[in-house]
């Protein structure tokens, strides 16, 4: 069938086609496109959040289990940190040693700070190693042995690195003792 269109009709048809193209463009660019874009972004957000929620539940379960498992470690850690009182170690460590040795019947003991250095281990970033020299001017061997046993048992963070025992020339039954000790002290 042959359709004979007049010039006026062709113009109107072209106008309709242009209108159709404009309509499609406006529809996809300003209506459906942004809507789909926002829907896709919301779906991504939901997926992310659901993943986070799922992970966080695992995380909280793990933390609860860890809390149960770490109860021994936390109480031990608390006991070890309690060995480091507040304040500068130079202020409390020498008096503590003097009192300790006095209780062990070794008088006139002194403690000198040699130096303090940080630990190389990453886990001990909050701790410092303090090196001290303890001078015991007069003691006898048996008393010294008992005192050292007591010191090593009562101060778990203290280790004796050097020991010098020399008999006193005037009274050989007594000895003069120097101890080089290192202590791990919590940074406050």
């Amino acid at each position, binding site marked *: 069938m042959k359709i004979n269109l007049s010039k006026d009709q062709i113009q109107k048809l072209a106008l309709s086609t242009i209108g159709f193209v404009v309509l499609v463009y406006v*529809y996809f660019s300003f209506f459906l496109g942004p809507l789909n874009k926002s829907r896709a972004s919301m779906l991504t*957000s939901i997926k992310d959040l659901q993943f986070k929620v799922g992970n966080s539940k695992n995380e*909280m379960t793990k933390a609860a289990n860890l809390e149960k498992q770490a109860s021994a*470690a*936390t109480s*031990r850690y608390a006991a070890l940190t309690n060995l480091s009182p507040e304040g500068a170690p130079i202020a409390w460590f020498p008096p503590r040693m003097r009192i300790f040795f006095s209780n062990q019947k070794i008088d006139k003991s002194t403690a000198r700070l040699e130096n303090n250095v940080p630990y190389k281990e990453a886990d001990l970033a909050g701790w410092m190693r303090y090196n001290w020299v303890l001078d015991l001017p007069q003691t006898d061997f048996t008393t010294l*042995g008992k005192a*050292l046993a007591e010191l090593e048992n009562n101060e778990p*963070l203290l280790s004796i690195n050097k*020991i010098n025992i020399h008999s006193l020339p005037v009274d050989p039954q007594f000895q003069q003792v120097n101890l080089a000790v290192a202590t791990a002290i919590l940074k406050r």
Partner: protein
Amino acid sequence: MALHLNLLHEEFQEQRQRQRDPLKIGMMVLGGLGALMFLYYMWNAYQTLGIRSRLNAVQSDWSKLEPQVTAAQKRSAELNSIIGTTKVLDGMIDGRFFWAPFLEKLSHCVALNAQLTSVDGTVLEENRGVNVLIEGLAAGREPRSAAEELRQLLLEQLSQSYHEVKVEFKTLEDLDTLVKIGGANMPTARFSLSATFNPNAVVKPAPAAPRKPKP
């Protein structure tokens, strides 16, 4: 047959022309398409609203959960740090060398005819052992033998508790000085002993036994 005359021919043609107007048809098609598109858009918008409400619900769940999760993560990190620190500190505590038992062993080795004048002990770095220098005097008919007895006894005593024990004389010299023991004058000797040992020896792996050839 009756003759049918169309006297309104021109009017009919105009009406037909109006009905076939492409702009009108185009507008109707556009209108129809527009309506379809609008419906499709509305359907999509409805779905998007549903997704938005789901997102809001998930966001509100997350906002409730987030502080708890942050606290749990913080606590986990803290606990891991505590466990790590306690482990390292326990390692240090267990790896210490205890001098009191050593001094006790040393005191058991010194007989009545010997006297120690100095004990200098050092714990070597990186668990490489302990080094002790012991100086003293021994007296007896054979003062060197008395010193040797002390050395052997010390070696025996230390070997019971420590590994890689070596007790060697650094010096052993007779002195002119005489001392009275049990009412009799005895000559004396000055000695210097070096004792080295490892309190925490690593167990060496046993060499693999040679395989027997299969018959």
